[in-house]
Structure formats: structure tokens, C-alpha cells
């Protein structure tokens, strides 16, 4: 029995180490490329031998990348804030109130999350050009909200179901107004769930490529994923591999850091939203 367990343990440890290496390879590779000199790009080596930060200097000196980074941050933050506020209302209603059509709301939310974004880009492209939202922040925030709302509503309502709402009732019996009870009891308890939902929504908006490429055309609203895809390099004779790699590292790092810091909550949020429903 013990021998068998030890063998099993050994097997899972080796497997675990392999998984860790496998998960990190592309990250290490893109970091490595970003630190290579242009002349060393083709050396086929995994690690850069003379390390240079020129690529980072180059992308920040260029007008395109800082603008795209600013757009990404602004658009993702605003989309997150708006989605979370609307999702909070909806999730509260779905969990705490009894009203006809509740199932319809939840079903509709699920349907929207399955919607193929490519089916929307034609009409949105056309509409946004007519109403002047093409190549603007709002032109991206609105479609992002559509797809982040289902995510936020499911995550938040799964989270709200676990909250001890009796405390809220007890506080009211003790003489607190509904508003006081909500602010002093429910809000602090709900904060971690709200935070988790916000991270998931932010990652979604930060990650999007399809809307960002089809609904923007200039530095006015083009976000980093789209900007990277259209990088041309400093001259047409030079492959922009190094700058693309450096830009990739810059957009990846903030999200990876956020995810690693809050990994426990994110895992809880992802699985609560998807499995428990």
C-alpha cells in the first residue's frame, strides 16, 4: 500500500514538473525574443546570449504602441466598470427577488455568451460608421460589455447565492434601514466576488482581437492586440519580430501578475460561473 502510494506520488510529481515547464515555455520564448538583438534573432537559440533592452526602448519611442497601450487600459477599465455595475443589479435581482421571466433572463444571458462575435462585426461596422462610433473608445466598449455582461452576471449570481443573506434580515430586524444593511453587511461580503468578476471581465476586454481589428483603424482606439498584429517595424527591410515580442511582453505582464496574485479567487470565479451556474 505505501509502496504503491509512493510510486503514485512520484508519477504525479514528474507529471507536475512537466506541466509547469510546458505552461511556461511560450512565455519564456517571447521574453527571450524580446531581449535578443536583431542580429541574433535567427540564432535558433532558446535563450538570448547578449541581452538587450533596445526593443523595449524602440516600442515606447514609437507613437503607435504607447497610444495602443493607453487605449487598451482605458477601454478595458471602462468596459469592466460599466459591466460590473449593470451585472450587480441583475445578479442581485436574479438571486434575491422573485419575478416572472427570471429564467428567461438567465437563459438569454447564457445565449448571449454563446453568440459568435463574427456574426456581429458586419452590422456593427456599418452602424458604427453611420452613427460615428467607428474607431472610438465607445465603439469598442459597447460590444465588449455585451460579452462581458453574461460572464459577470453568472459569476456574481453564483457568488451571491453563497452569501448569508440572513445577516441582512437580522440587521433589518435590529432596526437598520435596507440601505444600511446592504452597505454594512452585504457589500463587504460581496466585495471579493465583485473583484473576481471584475478581473475576469478585464481579461476578456484586454484579450479581444476581433472587434479591435474590425471596428478601429487608427491610434485613436486601436488596442494593443490589434496594434501588434499590424506592427510594421522601423523599416521595411527589418522584421519587426523583436518589437512584436517586446510589445507582447508588455501587454502580457500586467494580466499575468494580476492573475497570479489573485489566482485562488479567479479559479473560484471561473468554476463557479461555469459549473454551478
Amino acid at each position, binding site marked *: 500500500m505505501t509502496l504503491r502510494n509512493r510510486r503514485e506520488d512520484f508519477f504525479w510529481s514528474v507529471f507536475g514538473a512537466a506541466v509547469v515547464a510546458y505552461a511556461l515555455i*511560450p512565455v519564456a520564448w517571447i521574453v527571450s525574443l524580446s531581449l535578443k538583438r536583431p542580429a541574433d534573432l*535567427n540564432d535558433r537559440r532558446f535563450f538570448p546570449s547578449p541581452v538587450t533592452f533596445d526593443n523595449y526602448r524602440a516600442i515606447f519611442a514609437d507613437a503607435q504602441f504607447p497610444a495602443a497601450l493607453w487605449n487598451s487600459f482605458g477601454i478595458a477599465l471602462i468596459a469592466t466598470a460599466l459591466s460590473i455595475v449593470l451585472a450587480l443589479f441583475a445578479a442581485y435581482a436574479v438571486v434575491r427577488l422573485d419575478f416572472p421571466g427570471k429564467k428567461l433572463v438567465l437563459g438569454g444571458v447564457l445565449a448571449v455568451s454563446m453568440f459568435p462575435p463574427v456574426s456581429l462585426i458586419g452590422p456593427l461596422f456599418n452602424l458604427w460608421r453611420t452613427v460615428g462610433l467607428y474607431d472610438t473608445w465607445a465603439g469598442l466598449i459597447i460590444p465588449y460589455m455585451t460579452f462581458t455582461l453574461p460572464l459577470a452576471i453568472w459569476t456574481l449570481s453564483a457568488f451571491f447565492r453563497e452569501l448569508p443573506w440572513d445577516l441582512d434580515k437580522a440587521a433589518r430586524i435590529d432596526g437598520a434601514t435596507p440601505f444600511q444593511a446592504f452597505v454594512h453587511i452585504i457589500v463587504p461580503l460581496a466585495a471579493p466576488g465583485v473583484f473576481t468578476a471584475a478581473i475576469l471581465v478585464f481579461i476578456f476586454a484586454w484579450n479581444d482581437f476581433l472587434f479591435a481589428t474590425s471596428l478601429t483603424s487608427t491610434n485613436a482606439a486601436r488596442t494593443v492586440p490589434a496594434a501588434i498584429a499590424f506592427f510594421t517595424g522601423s523599416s521595411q527591410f527589418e522584421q519587426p519580430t523583436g518589437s512584436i515580442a517586446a510589445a507582447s511582453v508588455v501587454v*502580457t505582464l500586467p494580466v499575468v501578475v494580476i492573475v497570479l496574485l489573485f489566482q485562488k479567487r479567479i479559479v473560484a470565479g*471561473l468554476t463557479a460561473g461555469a459549473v454551478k451556474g
Partner: protein
Amino acid sequence: MTGRSRAERRLGWLLCAPAVLAMLLVTGYPILNAFWLSLHRFDLRFPEQSQFVGLANYASVLGSEVWWRALSNTLIITLGSVGLELVLGFALALLMFKATMGRRTIRTVILIPYAMITVVAALAWKFAFDPTTGFVNALLNLDQAWLSERWSAFFVIIFSEIWKTTPFMALLLLAGLTLIPQDLLKAARVDGATARQRFVKITLPLMKPTILVALLFRTLDAFRIFDTVYIQTRGAADTETVSIVGYNVLIARLNLGLGSAVSVLIFLGVLLIALLFIKGFSAPLTRSGGQ
């Protein structure tokens, strides 16, 4: 009481309305608009030539080889990536569940692919498989132009997809694993069931609902694949997927009529997949579970 329940009803609707309206406006209106556009000849470069053409756009999409190639490419990528992800995701979920050493590290590291932007992951693997800048050929001692041939390009695309999304699958399956009563497995072990028997007869049947949810999510995602293919091949080497076709017709060629027909067909494809899975959900769990 009736007054209160009426107030509750009103509040419920009031609170849901903004979110529902936001979603309806950006999905409901455009899909109806796409349907309407798909019945018209409508090219943004020649807007004055617009006219109602009925189902002609559908006829030309369904009659073109491009569409069917793209559909079969999409299905190859979907089946290839989701199938392997299920197996790998299960292995990863079991690892996270059973590992005694470094379980926290594994759980943390596994989130890195999830946190990485799809575009960046696609670029990283594109550069890795590149014959001049990449390390893969050097590592395998090969001289292969991966992304310029159809099947090797599929390999790279599917590989990138698997790398990126297996963690998501694994996390969902892990959540399902934790819901299995451990006493049941212990009892089976005492009764002499082998690890394989325990997995096939207890774990798998109890996991069926979770597996279906995970498969549904991933299948729909894979069917809509755009980023990875666009970054790695832009549809060259005969790797165009339906989303790439839709994007090209709509945004690159500005043919809204034809492109909308493609959009509507993709929408119907997603609907069909969802319906098939939902039928699978409601199938009695015991039928495939008992044996």
C-alpha cells in the same frame, strides 16, 4: 403581500433591464440586421447598386467551395483541439486533485496560459515554429516550414489552441472532480476495484454533467476560432476558418450582403452545436452512466 410581490416583481425587472437592454441592443439588433443585409446585394464600395436579392447570397455562399473548405477546416480544428483538450484537461485536473507536492504551484502556473492574450500566445508559437527564428526545428533537428503547408499548419494552430485553453478545461473538470464523494471511491477500492475500474465506473459517470458543460463551452469557442488562425497564417495554406471567411468578406472586401450571409450561417452553426449539446444534457444520465 400582493402589493409587496408586485413591488418585488417591478424591482426585479428594473434591475435586470439595463443589462438585458445592453445585451439585446448589441446582439439582437445586429443579428436581425445581418439577416436583413444578407438578403440584399450590398457592397460598401458600390452602395448605389444595393438591391433586394432574396436568398441569392446564401446560394452563392453555399455554392462556393471556399465556404465548405472553411467549414471543414473549422471542424478539423474544433474536433482536434477539443478532443485532445478533454484528454489533457482530464489528466491535468487529476494532477491538480492528486498531486501532493507543489499542488499550489501547479494551480498557479496553469493559469498563465489563460492569462496570456490569445494573440500573444499565437505569436509566441508562430515564432517558435518559424524555420529561421524558431527553436522547434533546432530542437527536433528538422527543416520544416510549418505554417506554409496545410497539415503542419493545422498542427501548429491546434497545438497553440490546446496550449491556451486546456487550463480552462482542466479547471472546470477539477471543479467537477471535487464534487465526487470520496467515500464512494474508497469503498470501491476496499472492494478491490482497480484504479481503471474506479475511474471508468465511478468518476466518469459522476462527471458527465461537468464534462458536457466543459465540452460545450470549448466546442463553441473553437468553432468561432479567429485570433490564432489570423495571426499564424491569415488563412493561407488552406487553413481559412469560417470566422476568417466572414471577416475577410465583411471587413477586407466590404461586401456586407455576402458577408452577412456568412455571419448568419455561422450563427446557425453555433445554434446547432448548442442544441445538440443541450439534447445531450437532458439525456438520462444513467443510460451511459450505468455501464
